[in-house]
């Protein structure tokens, strides 16, 4: 339908052009007639045929444009159009059509490109159609299309599906070349009609709240090991910081995924190396760059609310750590520390675009286990101290530290050692479909801690665990609540233990140890709003619809190719249809016309407007036709011919002629008689 409207607009444009040519033809004919009439009048009687022909041309011209006609004393006419001379006594001005800004087609004078003020006549009607009426309707439908796409794409992108396990995901939207460091919500990224690059206005991501104040937003990514089915959830969190708000460009996003930090984005939980098993980069395409996410072999990506997290697997189990010092070279970066094979502590950063490790410094560890008596370790300009006694350094484990823009460590206890779990403790995994709306809050994670140790599922040595969770309505902060449960014989290993809002935990066989000195507690991420800023729909990641306008909108090729690519659920369970239900709910949401109309109402409303306009115009047309008829009647009253009248006058003339002829006959007889007398 949008294409039909576009075609109509184009055909209105060509009609405008051909009518302009008609005006040119008429005005040049008038100019020629003017010359002939002046010549004719100069030599005697006014050339009535030519004047009649000229009047006919003037009548035709006035149906096309409203003109002012001035009769000259020498019987020629001067025709004014919008204040300027169109037809003079010997020549006429030529008009043509030209594209001006905003895609409008205007009628201009050919010599100086001056705009013609059209008022009345067919030209103005067609121009109005072409420049105002049709583009308004097209814009309305584009608005409907973009709003629908933004909503549906956002919901679809955060869904999941048991069959679709993409290893690589690419955004469909092209960020214009040279704008990799432009903030993603900057209006200069807007896609203009006809361009390939850019994000359609209305689909730009939003990093502000309803009042326009910058707010923090989350984007969750799940990385699933396709062999074991275990997934880890990471959240890329944007913090505006101070004023001006922190940078949020495509490069920042890519850097955050690869290294853990980029602009205002940072990854939680802060593991070494950005999001593991995942690399991002800006793929060069025609016109700019697309976001490309590539998981390592054997891993799949999704952005859903699924919660298969094994939080106990990747944590630092060693002693507490204190880092002091500052290094301006590390400003704004995330520094990773690893215990290497050969007993060294190595500090490194990851290059934002290539994902390569860049070693900062490394130092040999004095002994296999940390000892408070050991001197602090120096790495570059930083000083690392291990606190307290704990088990030995474990090869392969690591921790991270985020540095401020000045190159210092953030504040207080610099290292985010979020979880502590003993190697020999029983594993726990988190499952379910989170039905709440609370987003991930970094200082308020969901947590499980062991209050009393024991063997899981045993009757007389049952452990007691406490779950801390968040409830709220999703706007801003959330209330923390706790739940304590004793894992006795009613809860053997493998039982599903509900926590809250559809989230449940499953414990493996084994023992749990009491949380002494923070030694047995786990933070895990539960996020009810996987894409708060609308980044996924803005970048075209896992979208259901592609295209930027009503005319170009289509279902994504991947979904058309296989229905398995339609992300119907919120989790990867086979029977989960909740994402489709969310899309159905979105139908009812009032997002258009200042949040007063939903999609169907908007469509019907606009359709109705057009119908009412057509109805009104049809009525006006018949009114105008009646007015025109009565005007023509008035004109004919004065100048029209009544046959009876003419015939009557003709008969009178005939009789007068006959009478005169009679008199001539009588005179002739008189003169003949006189001549007879004389001769």
């Amino acid at each position: 339908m949008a294409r039909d409207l576009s075609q109509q607009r184009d055909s209105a444009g060509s009609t405008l052009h051909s009518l302009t040519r008609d005006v040119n033809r008429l005005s040049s004919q008038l100019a020629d007639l003017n010359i002939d009439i002046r010549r004719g009048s100069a030599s005697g009687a006014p050339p009535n045929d030519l004047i009649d022909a000229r009047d006919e041309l003037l009548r035709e011209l006035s149906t096309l444009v409203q003109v002012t006609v001035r009769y000259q004393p020498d019987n020629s006419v001067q025709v004014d159009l919008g204040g300027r001379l169109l037809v003079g006594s010997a020549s006429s001005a030529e008009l043509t059509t030209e594209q001006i800004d905003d895609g409008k087609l205007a009628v201009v004078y050919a010599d100086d490109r001056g705009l013609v003020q059209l008022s009345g006549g067919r030209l103005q009607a067609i121009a109005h159609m072409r420049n105002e009426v049709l583009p308004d309707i097209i814009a309305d439908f584009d608005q409907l299309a973009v709003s629908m796409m933004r909503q549906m794409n956002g919901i679809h992108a955060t869904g999941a599906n048991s069959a679709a396990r993409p290893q690589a995901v690419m955004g469909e939207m092209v960020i214009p070349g040279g704008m990799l460091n432009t903030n993603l919500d900057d209006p200069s990224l807007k896609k203009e009609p006809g361009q390939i690059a850019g994000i359609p206005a209305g689909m730009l991501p939003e990093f502000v709240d309803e009042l326009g104040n910058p707010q923090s937003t989350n984007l969750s990514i799940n990385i699933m090991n396709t062999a074991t089915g275990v997934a880890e959830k990471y959240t890329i969190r944007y913090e505006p910081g101070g004023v001006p708000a922190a940078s949020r460009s495509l490069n920042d996003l890519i850097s955050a995924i690869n290294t853990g930090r980029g602009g205002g984005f940072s990854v939680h939980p802060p593991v070494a190396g950005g999001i593991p098993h995942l690399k991002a980069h800006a793929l060069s395409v025609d016109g700019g760059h697309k976001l490309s996410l590539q998981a390592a072999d054997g891993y799949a990506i999704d952005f859903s609310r699924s919660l298969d997290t094994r939080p106990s697997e990747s944590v630092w189990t060693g002693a507490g750590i204190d880092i002091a010092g500052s290094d301006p070279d590390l400003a704004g970066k995330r520094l990773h520390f690893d215990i290497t094979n050969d007993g060294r502590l190595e500090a490194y950063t990851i290059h934002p675009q290539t994902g390569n490790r860049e070693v900062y410094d490394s130092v040999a560890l004095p002994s296999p286990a940390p000892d408070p008596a050991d001197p602090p370790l120096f790495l570059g300009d930083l000083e690392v101290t291990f606190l307290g006694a704990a088990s030995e350094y474990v090869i392969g484990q690591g921790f991270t530290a985020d540095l401020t823009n000045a190159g210092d460590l953030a504040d207080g206890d610099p290292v985010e050692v979020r979880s502590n779990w003993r190697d020999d403790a029983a594993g726990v995994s988190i499952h379910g479909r989170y039905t709440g709306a609370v987003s991930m809050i970094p200082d308020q994670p969901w947590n499980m801690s062991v209050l009393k140790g024991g063997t899981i599922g045993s009757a007389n040595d049952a452990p007691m665990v406490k779950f801390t969770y968040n409830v709220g309505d999703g706007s801003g902060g959330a209330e923390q609540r706790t739940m304590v449960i004793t894992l006795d014989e009613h809860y053997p290993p493998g039982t599903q233990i509900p926590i809250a809002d559809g989230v449940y935990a499953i414990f493996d066989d084994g023992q749990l140890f009491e949380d002494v000195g923070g030694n047995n507690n786990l933070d895990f991420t539960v996020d009810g709003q996987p894409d708060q800023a609308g980044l996924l729909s803005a970048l075209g990641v896992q979208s259901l619809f592609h295209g930027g306008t009503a005319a170009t909108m289509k279902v994504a090729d991947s979904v058309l190719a296989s229905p398995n690519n339609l992300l119907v659920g919120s989790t990867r369970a086979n029977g989960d249809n909740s994402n489709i239900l969310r899309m159905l709910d979105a139908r009812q949401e009032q997002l258009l016309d200042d949040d007063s109309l939903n999609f169907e109402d908007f469509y019907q409303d606009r359709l109705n407007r057009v119908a009412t306009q057509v109805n009104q115009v049809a009525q006006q047309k018949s009114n105008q036709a009646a007015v025109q008829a009565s005007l023509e009647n008035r004109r004919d009253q004065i100048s029209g011919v009544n046959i009876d009248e003419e015939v009557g006058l003709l008969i009178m003339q005939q009789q007068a002629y006959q009478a005169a002829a009679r008199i001539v006959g009588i005179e002739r007889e008189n003169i003949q008689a006189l001549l007879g007398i004389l001769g």
Partner: protein
Amino acid sequence: MSRVTSMMVTRNVLGANQANLNRVASLQHQLATGKRLAQLSDDPISGRRAMTFRVQYNEMDRYLANIDKTLAFQQASESAVTGMVDIAEEAKALALKATNGSEDAASRSAMARTMDGLLQRMVDLGNATHDGRYIFAGTAVFDKPFDLTADGNGVLYQGDQDDFQVSISKGNRATVNLNGAKVFQQDHDVFKALIDVRNAMAANDPEAVEEHLAALDGVHAHLGDTLGALGSSIRRVELTQQQIEAQKVNLSELISKEEDVDLAETISRLQMAETTLEAGLNAGARVLRPTLLDYI
């Protein structure tokens, strides 16, 4: 008195004729198509109402399709649970027999084997399928939910805790499935009751059988309740189905009122318009023809 010229007369006659013809043509079109509105602009207000009703009408069809699927699924659940109620009854009868002092070890051990058979059937019913999907597995519909452990002393649930819903009418979502863990294991563990009685029978221990009989009773009652609840849920969905079908009839009437032509009224209007047309043509012919020339 104003002057009247031939052009004026002609123009008036032709103009009126056109208007009459237009009216006749549009009435004819309405009769031929049976629809009052050829385009939305013919009557925007009426047309808008008709559009709204049409959209709702189409929605009704979709809801009915969803209801059919839901009913089929729930009826399959119902027959599985009915089977379970029967098994529980058989188990109770058997257990009662086992508490009878006149039975001996051999007969009790035979009963234990029968009981084991009943347990297997119960687990099979728990794993019932409909249309290729497991009914009681939550949303993990392709994974078998109930599994007997190797030692035969426990039944593990491997489905998940989620339910799936279906839109059955405007703003109304029905939860389609029964979650196996909640219904068969949480308050009254159906399988455990059977296992306990079987083990007591195999151990030739009538007191133990008597103890576990109470649990078996509870299970039987619980399954009966579940069946009842399922039945009333199915009834509610059927009621919704009836309501929607009634709404469909209603809506098609409303649509017809807005869109369709009233034959009697339109035909009589057409006749009037035709008469007007004829009169206009007749009068026009009379006025156009005569001029003074005819009389000279």
